[in-house]
C-alpha cells in the first residue's frame, strides 16, 4: 500500500503522465475534429506511424525539430486528403477506407524508413526536444518537476485542446462543423457546403494525428522503429467516445488514461518477478475497452457519423 502512495507522490510520475498523454491528446483531437464533421478516420494508426517516421527522418537529415513536426503534419494532411476523397467524394465505407489508409500509411512508412536508413545494430538517433525551462515555475519544488519540465510540443498540445474546444463550441466554423456532423442536409440548406467542411475537418484532423505520431520520435524517444505506435491510434478512437466528442473532455480523458499508464509502468518495476509484465501491458487496452463500455451509451454521437453525404440523395 505504501508503495502505491509512494508512486502517486513522486514528481516523476506526474511528469511521465504529461509526456505519455501528449500523443494521445493530439491524436484524439484529430479524430474528434474529423468525427464531429461526420467522418470516422481509422487511418489514425497508420497516419501516426507515418508522421513518426517522416518527422524523424526530416530531423535526421538535418531539418529543425519544428520543421520535423511540420513535415509530419503535412504528411498527415495528405493521407487525410486520400481518406476524404474516398469517404466524402466517393462516399465509400469509412471503416474500410480508414483501415486501408492505415495499412498503406504504415507499410509505406516502414518501406521508406528501410530504404533511407540502412539496417544497423543500434538504431540511429537524433537530438530530441529538450524540456522547456520556464523561469520560476520550473524551479518550484515538486510542482516544478512534476508539471513544468515538459517539452514545448506538450504545452502546445494542451493549448490546442483549449483552442479546439473554443473553435467547435463558439465560432461559426465550429457551428458549421457540428451541423455537418449532425445533419448535412440542414447544413446545406443554410448555405454551408458539407463536402468542403468534411474535407477540411478530415485533413486538419489527420495533420494533428501526424504531429501526434511525430511527438513519439522527436520528443518522447529519439529514434524510429516499426510498430512503435503500438495501437495508440486505436486508443485515441476509444478516447473520442469516452470524451463524448468534446475537446475539453478529450484532454481530461487522455490525461486520465496517461495517469493509469504511467502508474502501471511504475507498478511494474515494483512488482517485477511477482506478476508477469504482460499483464501490465494489457491494462491500457483493457482500460480503453472498459471506458467504451461505460461511456458508449451515454455519449452523444454526431448523428450523421459514418453516413456519406450525396447531394440530392436522401
Amino acid at each position: 500500500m505504501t508503495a502505491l502512495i509512494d508512486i502517486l507522490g513522486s514528481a516523476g510520475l506526474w511528469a511521465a503522465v504529461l509526456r505519455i498523454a501528449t500523443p494521445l491528446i493530439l491524436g484524439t483531437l484529430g479524430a474528434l475534429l474529423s468525427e464531429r464533421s461526420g467522418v470516422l478516420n481509422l487511418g489514425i494508426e497508420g497516419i501516426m506511424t507515418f508522421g513518426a517516421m517522416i518527422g524523424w527522418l526530416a530531423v535526421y537529415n538535418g531539418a529543425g525539430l519544428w520543421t520535423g513536426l511540420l513535415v509530419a503534419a503535412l504528411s498527415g494532411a495528405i493521407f487525410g486528403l486520400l481518406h476524404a476523397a474516398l469517404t466524402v467524394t466517393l462516399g465509400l465505407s469509412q471503416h474500410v477506407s480508414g483501415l486501408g489508409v492505415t495499412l498503406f500509411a504504415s507499410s509505406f512508412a516502414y518501406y521508406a524508413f528501410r530504404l533511407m536508413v540502412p539496417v544497423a545494430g543500434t538504431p540511429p538517433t537524433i537530438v530530441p526536444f529538450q524540456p522547456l525551462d520556464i523561469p520560476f515555475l520550473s524551479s518550484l519544488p515538486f510542482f516544478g518537476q512534476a508539471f513544468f519540465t515538459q517539452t514545448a510540443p506538450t504545452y502546445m498540445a494542451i493549448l490546442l485542446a483549449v483552442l479546439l474546444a473554443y473553435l467547435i463550441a463558439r465560432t461559426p466554423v465550429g457551428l458549421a462543423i457540428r451541423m455537418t456532423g449532425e445533419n448535412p442536409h440542414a447544413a446545406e440548406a443554410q448555405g454551408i457546403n458539407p463536402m468542403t467542411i468534411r474535407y477540411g475537418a478530415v485533413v486538419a484532423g489527420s495533420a494533428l494525428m501526424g504531429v501526434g505520431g511525430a511527438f513519439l520520435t522527436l520528443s518522447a524517444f529519439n529514434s524510429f522503429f516499426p510498430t512503435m505506435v503500438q495501437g495508440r491510434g486505436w486508443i485515441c478512437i476509444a478516447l473520442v467516445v469516452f470524451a463524448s466528442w468534446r475537446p475539453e473532455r478529450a484532454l481530461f480523458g487522455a490525461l486520465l488514461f496517461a495517469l493509469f499508464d504511467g502508474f502501471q509502468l511504475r507498478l511494474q518495476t515494483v512488482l517485477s518477478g511477482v506478476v508477469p509484465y504482460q499483464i501490465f501491458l494489457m491494462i491500457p487496452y483493457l482500460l480503453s475497452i472498459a471506458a467504451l463500455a461505460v461511456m458508449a451509451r451515454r455519449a452523444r454521437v454526431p448523428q450523421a457519423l459514418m453516413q456519406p453525404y450525396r447531394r440530392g440523395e436522401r
Partner: protein
Amino acid sequence: MRFERREHRSTALVIAAPLIAVAGAFAITGILIAIAGAPVFEAYWRILTGAFGSRLSATETLTRATPLILTGLAAAVAFRARLWNIGGEGQFYLGAIAVAAASAHIARGLPSLVQIPLLFVVGAAAGMLLLLLPLWLRLRFSVDEVVTTLLLNFVALLFVSMLIDGVLKDPAAFGWPQSEAVDAAARLPKLLARSRLHIGLGLAVAIAFIVYFVQSRTVFGLQSRAAGLNPSGAAFAGVPLARTLVIVAMISGGLAGLAGAIEVLGVKGYVTNDLSPGYGYSGIVVAMLANLNPLGVVLAALFTAVMFVGADGMSRSMGIPTYIADVTVALSLLSMLIAVFFTQYRIRR
C-alpha cells in the same frame, strides 16, 4: 464531379474491376521501386519467379496462402453482415495457443483421427470466444466493435506472450519464449513430401466452398446478408438480428481461430510470438480484394501470398525492402475499393 448509380452492372465490368485495381496498384508500386533505384520490370519478374520459380517456392506460396484463405473468409463472412471483425489477428493467436495447450496437456496420446478434429474444435472455439466479447459489448452497450476487436488483438498477443513465457513455456527451448511442441499424432499430414505444404490447404479451399454454399443457398445466408444491408428492414421482415449476428460472429471468430490451429498443427508444431506475420490483418485485405465473395477469397489469398513470398526473394536479390509487398497489397485494397465503386456508379457528364 457528380456520380449517378448505374442502372445495370455489366458482368465484364465486374470481372475487369479487380484486374484494373491490381494493375493500378502495381503501377504505383512501380514508382516506389524505381525510386529505390531498381529496374521495375525485373523486380516484378523476380517476385513472380520468387513465388513460383521452383518447387520449393511454389509450395511455400501455397503454404502461406492457407491461413490467408481462412482469415480472409473470417473477415468476409463478418463484413457481409456488417459485423466489423478486425480482430482476426488476436483470434488467430488464441486459436493457436489453445491448440498448443490442449495438445500438450489434454489430448496427448490420442490417435490422429480423434486428436486432430478435436484440436480443430478447440482452436475454433478459442477464436469464437474472443469475438463474442466485442459482440456482446455491441449488443448490450452499443460499443463499436471495430475499436474493441482492434484493441483485443493487442491483449490477445500479450496473453499468448505471457503463456509461452510462463506456464506453457517449453523448458527445452534454451530460454526462448515458445510453447511445447504438439503431439506428433496431432501434426497434419503433408500434401507433398519434402515440403511444408500440408492438408490444411485442401481443408481451407473446401471451407471456402461450404461458406459460399451457405451464403448463397441457405436461409441463414440470406438473413446474414439482409442484416448487413439493412438491419431495420431485416428486423421488420422477421430476421432475428441478434441471433444472426451471434452465429456470424461464431463462424467468423471460429474460422480465424481455426486458421491459427491449422498453422500450428500444419507448419510449426509450436507457438512463438512471431507465428503470424499479420495473417489476421492481411485477411481483411484478402476479403476486400475478393469483394467479400468466398470463392474470390481463395484467389485473393493466393495473390497476397504470391506478393509476400515473391517479395521476400526479390528483396534479397535486389536490395528493395520486403515491406514493398505490404505496400502493394494495401494499395490493391484501396484501388479495389475505388474500382468496385465505379462498377456501381458512373460520372455524370
